[in-house]
């Protein structure tokens, strides 16, 4: 297992290097920050000073190597647009993103796992069909459009909830529901198909033969064996949502990691973009490793394999 984690980690670091190199090159190709960030009437001398200050006058490979050396030492550079360390600017947004992500995921788990198990138990019934139809539509609705419709109806027309921003729980409701919908649909489908598959296994027949209720059979025996893919889907979603739900955050003006990186990209604030991207990629890698470890807990077969 240790060897396995090590191997994964080495590959993850390689992936991280590749990703940062690509982002670095992209940012470099996109133009000179000395023109984007300084006032239009800045003198060539001022621009030269700016470039020297941030090391932008060196060749790209030198810049990248210097950047990596500093990152290893925990220094992600200074933000161009905020006079603050880039890592701090990125980390500051993490709580908002975690709040939104966890709320949406909790909502999705609470709704879709019971729904998926019931749909599997009552396969072919009108309930099952309705569920499948709802999930199909749920997966076809763009989240940002759903968000806007919710703002229009709930916040603007009925004035029930605040339109946007972050504050108390009332601010969290709409973004969390909008963000959860797609995940709900996905999770309900995965749960249904996995439970269905489990229900066909021999141990389920045994459980029934023992005289257990259908509820115990589906809810306990079948669901337990369906957990692995469900956990996988949840973990991967969590990993990708760490990067911020850009669309949802934009629609609801939610101050998360997604809007932060979006702003930094548009402002060409190179250090912040890189710090944000690193943060997101590292989070994603950690989640993946954690998933791998979790598999061995949930399915002892993997430990022996």
């Amino acid at each position: 297992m240790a060897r396995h984690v090590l191997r994964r980690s080495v590959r993850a670091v390689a992936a991280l290097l590749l990703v940062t190199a690509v982002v670095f090159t992209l940012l470099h190709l996109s133009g000179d920050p000395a023109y984007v960030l300084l006032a239009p009437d800045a003198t060539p001398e001022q621009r030269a000073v700016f470039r020297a200050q941030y090391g932008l006058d060196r060749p790209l490979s030198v810049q990248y190597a210097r950047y990596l050396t500093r990152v290893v030492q925990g220094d992600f550079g200074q933000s161009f647009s905020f006079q603050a360390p880039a890592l701090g600017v990125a980390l500051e947004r993490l709580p908002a993103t975690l709040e939104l992500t966890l709320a949406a995921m909790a909502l999705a788990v609470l709704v879709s796992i019971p729904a998926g198990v019931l749909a599997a138990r009552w396969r072919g019934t009108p309930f099952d069909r309705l569920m499948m139809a709802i999930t199909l539509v749920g997966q076809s609705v763009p989240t940002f459009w759903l968000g806007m419709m919710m703002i229009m109806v709930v916040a603007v027309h009925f004035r029930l909830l605040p339109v946007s921003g972050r504050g108390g729980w009332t601010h969290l409701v709409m973004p969390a529901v909008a963000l959860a919908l797609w995940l709900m649909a996905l999770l309900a489908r995965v749960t249904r198909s996995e439970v269905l598959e489990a229900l066909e296994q021999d141990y389920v027949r045994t459980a029934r033969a023992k005289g257990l209720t259908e509820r115990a059979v589906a809810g306990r025996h079948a669901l337990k064996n369906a957990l692995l893919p469900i956990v996988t889907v949840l973990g991967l979603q969590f990993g990708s949502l760490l990067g911020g739900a850009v669309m949802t955050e934009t629609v609801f003006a939610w101050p998360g990691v997604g809007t932060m990186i979006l702003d930094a990209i548009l402002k060409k604030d190179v250090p912040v973009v890189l710090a944000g991207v690193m943060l997101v990629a590292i989070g994603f890698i950690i989640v993946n490793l954690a998933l791998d470890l979790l598999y061995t807990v949930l399915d002892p077969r993997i430990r022996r394999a």
Partner: protein
Amino acid sequence: MTVAMAGSDEPIGVLVAGTADAAVRVTPAPRRGLGGLVGGGLAILAIALTVAVFAGTIAPHGFDDQDLAFALQPPVGAGGTWANTLGTDALGRDVLSRIVYGARTSLLLALASVLLAAVVGVTLGLVSGWAGGRIDAAIMSLVEAQLSLPYLLLAIAFMALLGPSLINLVVVLVLRSWVVYARLVRVAVLSMKSREFVMIAVALGATDRRILFRHIAPNVLAPALVVSSFQLAELIIVESSLGFLGLGVQPPTPSWGSMLSQGREYIASAWWLVTFPGLAIIVTVLGANLLGDALRDALDPRLRTSVGLSLWRRAMDAMVTRGKGSRRSTALGEGAVEGHLERGGGER
């Protein structure tokens, strides 16, 4: 199951990578009315495609015909007239006409990108799975690097930094989908490598190229077709997301996404500007998702509601029975990610 006779070239049947016979179900899934669903999905897409291609004849007005005297007219049924069935925007442009022209950008662009991504992804997947070794490692680390970043941020960075041109947009869309094809095809090839019909072809002295393209590739077509439907749905949503952020096709050319972003400013006063382009997206995406679901069930009833997780299970089974420790993480990661990437709509 795919069966091949010693001398025959073509395997019979269309299944992906079989799990050999180990996973044959005792109770086959009851068939639903799949014909209807395929038809429904196809019909929606066909209508959308027709609208896109013949936008010039179908649209009642031009997409950029401005008339400030008729700005923000409501749709029919809410006080509007049939002259502007779905109302007008802040510049007095006809919303219906803009949706019709928007189908061009949104649907045709996504369609072209899916085809391109399929060619790139399937080819790389075939090569990766068959060649193995360093080539495989190189291609897969590319895939892994891309997947360790949230795609939408990558797309935003690309479009914002290199400029929102049509070519860049296609590149970004292809970037989204090629990984899905590459992974799927690679897993399929890996598990087909040890199958009898491939062994026999090898034993008969067939060249790598012949085995790959005559024996293996046809077996990958069916799942690739299913994936294409879902990817079409996905790319329509990606394109409209980028359009919404102002990073897609530039004005005055309408796209459903950019219409939504313009409509957002009038969210409190002109509900039709946000509602109708969104419905256009949903209906088209639903069509593609329906088609994908139905195709999958029709091509392989065993796969039921999830190609990805089924692949995952196969990978699992293969792993456990063969006990190849080193393949462990890749096999797990692959199938699981496939299930996760499978259907469109994940851009949040």
